[in-house]
Every structure is written in C-alpha cells, then in structure tokens.
C-alpha cells in the first residue's frame, strides 16, 4: 500500500513541558488509517526553505472516529522548532503512513511489556491502545531524564505503569531497565534511545524473551526510495523507513 502525501489542518497544539509538544491534526483519509509504530514525514515549511528534509514523527494516537492524529514530539532543532510554531488552523504536509508498524495481532493474548525511554514513548501509546482493543493490557515501563510526560493517557489502556527517572525527582531513581523483569513477559516492545534499547534487548535475550524495538535514523524520503536510513545487520542492510522502523531486536542488534 503506497504512502500518500496529504495536507492536513492543525486542530490543537499543546505544550506539555518546555520541550515536549502534543499536536493534533485532522487525518481525513480513513482508508489510510495509520497503525501503531508507523510514522509520517512532517513538513510545515516551503520546499525551498531550510531544513532541506522533512522530519519523521511517529503516530502517538490515531482516532478513527474523530479522524484525528496526535503527534507527541520533542523540540530538538530547526525542524521541530518550525513544527512547534504551528497554531490551530495552520496547514501541515504529511507523507505516510510510513513504515511497518508493530505487529499487534502477534502480541495479542501474550504477556506484554512496553518499554519507553523519553520521547521514545511517543509511539507506545497508540500501541497500548491497539493492544487494549485486542484484549491485552500491557504493562508500561517508562524512563525519563527528569520530568515525565504523557503518562496519564497510558493508565487507561495499560496494566501496571512504572516510572523511572535519572534524576529521581519522579518515580524510581535510576534506569527503566532496573525495573523491568523480562522473564515475566512473553514479549517486550521497546522504543527509546538506542543504548537503552540495546540494554533492554540484552536483558530479554538473557531470559529468552522476545524483544521488539523501534529504530531511529535520519531520513530523507521516509518511503524506501533513497536508502539513507539503512541499518546494517549481520544479514545485510535493512531499510528502517520501509522494512522498519520496528524490528526484532535480534535482527538488528544481533543475538
């Protein structure tokens, strides 16, 4: 199913923390319903204006009834700064839904843990929702540097919710990996900084729990056309935007 390009309207734009924003946009194309783990290439500046490339942002939540999409994102540099300047009524150009997304059918009925680090929690909310609809309440482990965000939403669609912060200001003082007991789960689905995902994958490996990760790469096209986002693996390159961003950790980090 080829991705589409679509101009959508910004409906709401909230500031959750100094650097975290939650943006709601219309997504009229119900025939192209995005699923958990998929993403869009976002652009709200003309083709001839910097930055040259559009920016990939995951689906934080899709509401098929309201036909709206939520993006949860961190303001890091030029691209996300431009996104952050959008106000309701503005137009945003989207390319997507892109990527493979999480395999919810496979996870349904299993003991599932979601592990998120920082802004890596963004795609996990849509995932938790889809799992919940499929009858599976996943446990949610999240780690933040200091201030957590977006957590309240998860409580309704997850089982246990556990929080760790590096600073210790909120929840457990330490890494989320110290909270997770992978032996209690059949499947661990993870998104966050790569070192954290590697650590989670290692813990899972040690006890034989399957671990699924969602990778981040710089992207030019987001649709498999440029090969700029390749992840090198022992069995060859994987196109993160098209074959991913969701992979079995063994496939991309090795066993």
């Amino acid at each position: 199913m080829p991705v589409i390009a679509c101009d959508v309207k910004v409906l709401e734009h909230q500031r959750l923390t100094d650097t975290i924003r939650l943006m709601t946009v219309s997504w009229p194309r119900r025939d192209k319903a995005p699923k958990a783990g998929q993403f869009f290439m976002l652009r709200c500046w003309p083709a001839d204006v910097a930055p040259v490339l559009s920016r990939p942002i995951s689906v934080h939540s899709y509401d098929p009834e309201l036909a709206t999409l939520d993006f949860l994102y961190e303001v890091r540099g030029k691209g996300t700064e431009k996104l952050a300047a959008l106000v309701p009524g503005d137009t945003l150009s989207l390319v997507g839904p892109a990527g493979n997304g999480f395999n919810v059918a496979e996870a349904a009925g299993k003991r599932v843990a979601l592990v998120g680090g920082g802004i890596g929690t963004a795609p996990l909310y849509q995932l938790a929702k889809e799992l919940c609809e499929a009858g599976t309440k996943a446990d949610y482990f999240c780690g933040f540097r200091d201030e957590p965000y977006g957590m309240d939403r998860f409580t309704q669609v997850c089982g246990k919710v556990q929080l760790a912060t590096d600073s210790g200001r909120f929840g457990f003082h330490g890494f989320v990996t110290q909270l997770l007991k992978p032996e209690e789960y059949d499947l661990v689905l993870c998104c966050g900084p790569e070192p954290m995902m590697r650590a989670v994958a290692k813990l899972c490996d040690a006890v034989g729990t399957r671990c699924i990760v969602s990778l981040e790469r710089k992207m030019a096209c987001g649709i498999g056309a440029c090969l700029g986002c390749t992840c090198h693996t022992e069995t060859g390159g994987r196109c993160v935007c098209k074959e991913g961003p969701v992979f079995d950790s063994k496939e991309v980090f090795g066993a």
Partner: protein
Amino acid sequence: MSVSLKVNLLGKEMAGPVVGASGTFGFGKEYAGMVDLKKLGGISGKGITLIPKAGNQGERLLETPSGLINSIGLQNPGVQHFIDHELPVMETLGTTIWANLGGGCIEDYEKGAELLNPTSVDFVELNISCPNVKQGGIAYGIKAESAKEVVSRVRAVCKKPLIVKLSPQAEDICQMAAACVEAGADALSLVNTFQACAIDLEKRRPVFNNIFAGLSGPAIKPIALRMVYQVCGAVNVPVIGLGGILTGADALEFIMAGATAVQVGTANFMNPRACETITDEIAAWMEAHGVETLDEIRGCARV
C-alpha cells in the same frame, strides 16, 4: 492553446521532460501514491551493480545550506535481482525505464549491460560518476581516457540506448563529454553529485566514514547549469540536465541551455510531488508564454 510536453529521446517518446533521478526515486513504485507517474518522462532507478552492494557504513545523510550530502555508496540488490523483482513492477508504472548501471571493474559493467539487453529497460544510464564508491564510481568519471575505455567496452555489448552520466568532478567536462560520445554514448546526463566534505565538531572527525560524500540539491544548480550549457555546446547528442532542479523555472533554464530533458533528485525529498509539480509548472509557463512545444525553446538561451 494546447501545450505538448512530449519529448522524443533517442526514438522513444516520453510524456514529459522530467525524469526521476537515480537514487532519489527508488524504483518508482514508492512514489506511485503521491505522483501521477504517467506524466513523467521516465524513472531512473536506484543505481545497480552486477554484484549486490551493502553500501556505506556510518552517517549517510547530512543537510547543508540548500543542499544534501549523501554517502549511500550504491547500496543495491544487484542487476539480476533488479531484473527479477523490480523491473516487473516498473513496467506497470506507465513511463520509460532507465536502468542506472554502476560497476566495479569494467567487466562488471559489461556483464551488467549484457544482463539488461533482453529486458524491457528503455535506457541504460551508465553511472561513471558516483563519488561514494572507491571502485567503478568516480574513478572513471575524472579522466576522459578512463571514461572512454569503460564506455566503449560497454557500448560494444550494450544493445540498449546508452546514456552516460557524467561527474562534475571531470577534469574538463567538455572533453569528458566528447570522449564519451566518441566512445559510443547515445546521450549524456549530468551532473551527478559534487564531492564534498563535512566535519563533526564534537567528534573532531569527518561526518562521513569515507571522509568525502556527494553534494546535491539547489545549492549546486548554478554550477550544474553551467556544465550542461557547456556540454550542450560540445557534443551533438541529447543531453539530460540535472542538479538542483526544484521548480519549473529551474527546469526551463536547463532546457533553454540546450537540455533535451531534465532529471529531478533531491527535490523529491523537499516535496514528494516535485516531479509532477515541476512538470505542471513547465506547462503553465509554456501556456503563459505561448510556447507549444519544448522544441521551440530548447537551446534558445545559447549565445
């Protein structure tokens, strides 16, 4: 007034002058949901080589002012895989098929071209200009004599219309062009990316593992246009111009400089509908200026 965008390239009719540039347009199908591919002149697929290549390690992309540096390194599944799995889909897209053929040694170029002979490929675009691979890339694109050798050897076995894609790194772009035509090129396309460099201040080392990588995008357009202007004056075969084209006006500059058609690369990342938008803008300009066919203006700015 009825405007015709049709272009006849080496006996094949193309619906328009805009071709998706190699390496930026996948094998075409990726854009099928966004672009009316039937309006395009053609699609130049990702560069393929006889032996599959894994491409480069490390950073592959870097944004620069109005430009993009890439270090893909010709990652591709090989010519045979292209023929078996990509070409059948390309055939359904309703536009001309350009096989962008890279190589390692000359024998690999020859064998790759031979494999393409019995296929539905419309044009073989010989890539002697990739700055991101050590062998079979830029090596042939700098000195006219090296280019001449590889082009004539491929020409001898290639039964398809043969377009040679030049590097802006060529010592003398006109000599290079003439050498390739003498060696049997039916047409030329230029430019490939410019060898460029970037340094990561925090790591205090080059951003790219290969140190150098290829610059493309609007930043290079003025230089690319100069080279196309020069080459159009140096050879008597069709020239396909590219390098930084983002608008219909950009494309028209290349055509007025003498280009038969144009390719659009990096612009696809700035606007996924760029190839179609540019085509429409060309048509609108022709309409507004009473120009019915591109033949009326091709080369008109040459002095």
